[in-house]
């Protein structure tokens, strides 16, 4: 019998830590509710929120870290209570009972989860075999849990009390609490707990040698455990049953139970292995996932690259398109310019042809005149008619002069058109230039008995190109002589305009011209006017040249005329500063 008791005691002692451990394995609903409320209440306190969430996940180490952080920062009494509570629970779960006791004893009186705290304190004292202390805490916990109406938790406390009384050998009290425990367990707790409760009671009865009751509860426990998934529990109940049968002398049954127990033990071990395998699988799955993530990343990168490529090619295409459009526009523009230029060239070419024909016509007639005059000259020589000779020679030289000035104008006009003319503005003494021009026309003036007057003041200096000024004066004087009658008068004089410009007026008393002719002559177009006056050689080239040369010198050109009274050509040219 002694041996039997020992066996049961051994088995009983085996139960207790297991039972307590399983207690804390699942989080009490009551506790969870309060903790979540607290987390909401102290939303700002990150460390606390983290500590409680780790606590609920049973990650004890992290809970310890964050609760410590919270303790070091926070002054709030309530929060530190919870932190101490977390720490106590953690140490308890890690089986550091002394530390658990220290932490839990720091919690203040007004703590919402006092009954749990006291229960845990009780268990730690029980574990350290301070049975009286344990009893004290359990009783305190019992009272508190009744006041907060956590009946479910009460069963744990009763179980603790029962166990304590067993150790104190107060079996009747132990029985009372264990029975209470069973009744609560049947009401509120799951099968495993109930099964445990039965086992505890059975153990008690065994101790009291109430074998029938013990066997009854062992059997009950065994039956309940059949529904459980907990292999350890199954192993335990089977093992107990085998001892019960062994004691009854039913060795065959005992052996069966022992075998079953062994089987459950193996299963428990297997389960461990399975867990390990599951762990491995999990790791493998994680690795797989990691791989997948990598693949996805690479894919993403590829996609990104592809997208970038597309983007770049789109931009390149756009650029090509715009440049294409630009070049097309440019081409169109060029074509337009070319067209305009071509039209202008055509026009110019027409002018040139026109000029060509006029000039060649004029040249032809003057050379022809020279020819006839020359033949007359040789006739006169042969007939020794010397009186006529002089007149013929004068006529010849005047024809030659006209032709020369025509050709000279033509040359200058061509050079002006091709922009080959040398043009250099300098200080020019107006009076001297007029004198120089007059010098060349002295004989013509005398012939027509025209009175020439140079009324230009001697202190006037112009800022013009000398040769173009000479061309202008030559043409104007030439015209003035041409259109003057016998005994006419030609005058060069000036009029001040302002400090920068000077008017030079060339006035004759010739045949004059109509408004129409003036406007035709002053027209900006470069077309040449064939004059009505067919007797006098002229192409209008001279006047065109004068206009262009004056403009080039920065001056203006105007005509005032009255028919049969005379013409005034008014030039405005810059003075030297």
């Amino acid at each position: 019998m002694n041996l039997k008791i020992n066996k049961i005691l051994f088995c009983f002692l085996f139960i207790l830590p297991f039972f307590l451990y399983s207690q804390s394995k699942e989080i009490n609903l009551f506790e969870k509710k309060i903790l979540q409320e607290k987390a909401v209440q102290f939303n700002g306190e990150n460390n606390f929120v983290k500590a409680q969430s780790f606590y609920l996940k049973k990650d004890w180490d992290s809970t310890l870290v964050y609760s410590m952080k919270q303790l070091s920062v926070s002054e709030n009494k309530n929060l530190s209570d919870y932190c101490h509570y977390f720490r106590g629970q953690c140490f308890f779960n890690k089986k550091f009972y002394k530390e658990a006791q220290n932490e839990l004893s720091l919690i203040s009186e007004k703590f919402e989860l006092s009954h749990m705290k006291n229960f845990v304190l009780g268990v730690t004292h029980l574990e350290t075999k301070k049975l009286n202390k344990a009893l004290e805490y359990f009783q305190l916990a019992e009272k508190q849990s009744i006041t907060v109406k956590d009946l479910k938790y009460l069963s744990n406390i009763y179980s603790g009390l029962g166990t304590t009384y067993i150790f104190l050998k107060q079996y009747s009290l132990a029985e009372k609490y264990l029975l209470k425990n069973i009744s609560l367990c049947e009401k509120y707790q799951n099968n495993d707990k109930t099964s445990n409760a039965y086992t505890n009671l059975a153990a008690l009865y065994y101790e009291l040698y109430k074998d029938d009751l013990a066997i009854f509860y062992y059997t009950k426990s065994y039956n309940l455990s059949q529904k459980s998934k907990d292999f350890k529990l199954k192993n335990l109940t089977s093992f107990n049953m085998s001892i019960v049968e062994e004691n009854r002398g039913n060795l065959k049954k005992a052996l069966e139970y022992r075998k079953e127990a062994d089987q459950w033990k193996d299963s428990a071990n297997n389960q461990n292995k399975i867990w390990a395998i599951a762990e491995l699988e999990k790791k493998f799955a994680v690795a797989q996932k990691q791989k997948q993530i990598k693949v996805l990343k690479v894919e993403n990168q590829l996609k990104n690259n592809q997208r970038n490529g597309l983007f770049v090619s789109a931009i390149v295409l756009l650029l090509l398109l715009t440049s294409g459009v630009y070049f097309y526009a440019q081409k169109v523009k060029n074509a337009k310019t070319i067209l305009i230029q071509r039209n202008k060239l055509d026009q110019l070419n027409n002018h040139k042809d026109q000029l060509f024909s006029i000039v060649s016509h004029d040249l032809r007639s003057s050379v022809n005149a020279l020819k006839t005059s020359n033949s007359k000259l040789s006739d006169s020589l042969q007939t020794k008619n010397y009186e006529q000779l002089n007149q013929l020679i004068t006529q010849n030289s005047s024809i030659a002069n006209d032709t020369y000035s025509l050709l000279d104008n033509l040359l200058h006009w061509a050079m002006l058109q091709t922009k080959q003319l040398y043009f250099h503005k300098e200080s020019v003494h107006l009076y001297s230039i007029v004198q120089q021009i007059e010098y060349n026309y002295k004989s013509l003036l005398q012939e027509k008995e025209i009175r020439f007057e140079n009324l230009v003041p001697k202190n006037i200096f112009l800022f013009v190109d000398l040769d173009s000024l000479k061309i202008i004066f030559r043409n104007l004087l030439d015209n003035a002589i041409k259109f003057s009658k016998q005994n006419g008068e030609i005058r060069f004089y000036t009029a001040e305009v302002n400090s920068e410009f000077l008017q030079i007026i060339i006035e004759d008393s010739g045949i004059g011209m109509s408004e129409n002719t003036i406007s035709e002559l002053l027209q900006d177009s470069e077309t040449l006017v064939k004059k009505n006056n067919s007797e006098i050689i002229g192409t209008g080239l001279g006047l065109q040249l004068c206009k262009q040369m004056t403009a080039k010198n920065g001056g203006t050109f105007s005509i005032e005329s009255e028919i049969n009274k005379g013409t005034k050509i008014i030039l405005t040219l810059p003075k030297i500063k």
Partner: protein
Amino acid sequence: MDNINVLIIEDTPAQSDALIKVLLENNYTVAGVARDFTSALKLFYECSVDVIIIDVFLDGKPDGITFAESINIIPNASKPFVFLTSSQDRQIFERAKLTKPFSFLMKPFNELEILYAIEMAVEKFYEQTNVFLSEEQNTVVSNDFLFIKKKNALKKVALNDILYIEVEERYCNIVTEKEKFVILISLTKISELLDKAKFLRIHRNTIVNSDKIEEIILADNLIILKGNHKINLGDTYKDFIKKMNILS
């Protein structure tokens, strides 16, 4: 007063003859006529020349400009040029422009144009423009000569020959050892243009050539020049004596 010496560089005899005729008629001296580049250089160094008339094209080549260019590189050798040309080819002009100062004459030209061109060349060369044709002045001052316009022609007077210059209203009396004549220029202007170390202002109205001073009699405020010309010394102008190297 001396005539201006003109060097003619012209390959066509008809042209040069016409030129010579005009120049002689107007009291210029023709220093020589060169037909080509080398003889032109030779004549230029042999004769004393005041003005050069150059045909741009000598025998179809623009040697006239080449000549002007080669004269121009020699320091202090250059003289006033008048270019003769029948072409208004821009390139030739651009090239000739580099040998500034210059004056151009387009063929065919008349007498007046030649004279005008020569005057212009002298004015431009000595950088005293608008002198000869203005009514205020008729003299251009160079380092060695006064170029004076008398009627239609230019004349020159060597500065070394001048004894003193005396102002008389708008005119200046120039007195040399041999003659005395009047030019149109203000005393301020002429004293600016003359070498101040050589020509000294000794009176409000008088500038003397220091080389010609024979004696200074401070007691009588008198300066005696070569040829026994006696000039009054103005009180405010005595400072010049300090600048002279006096042998005691």
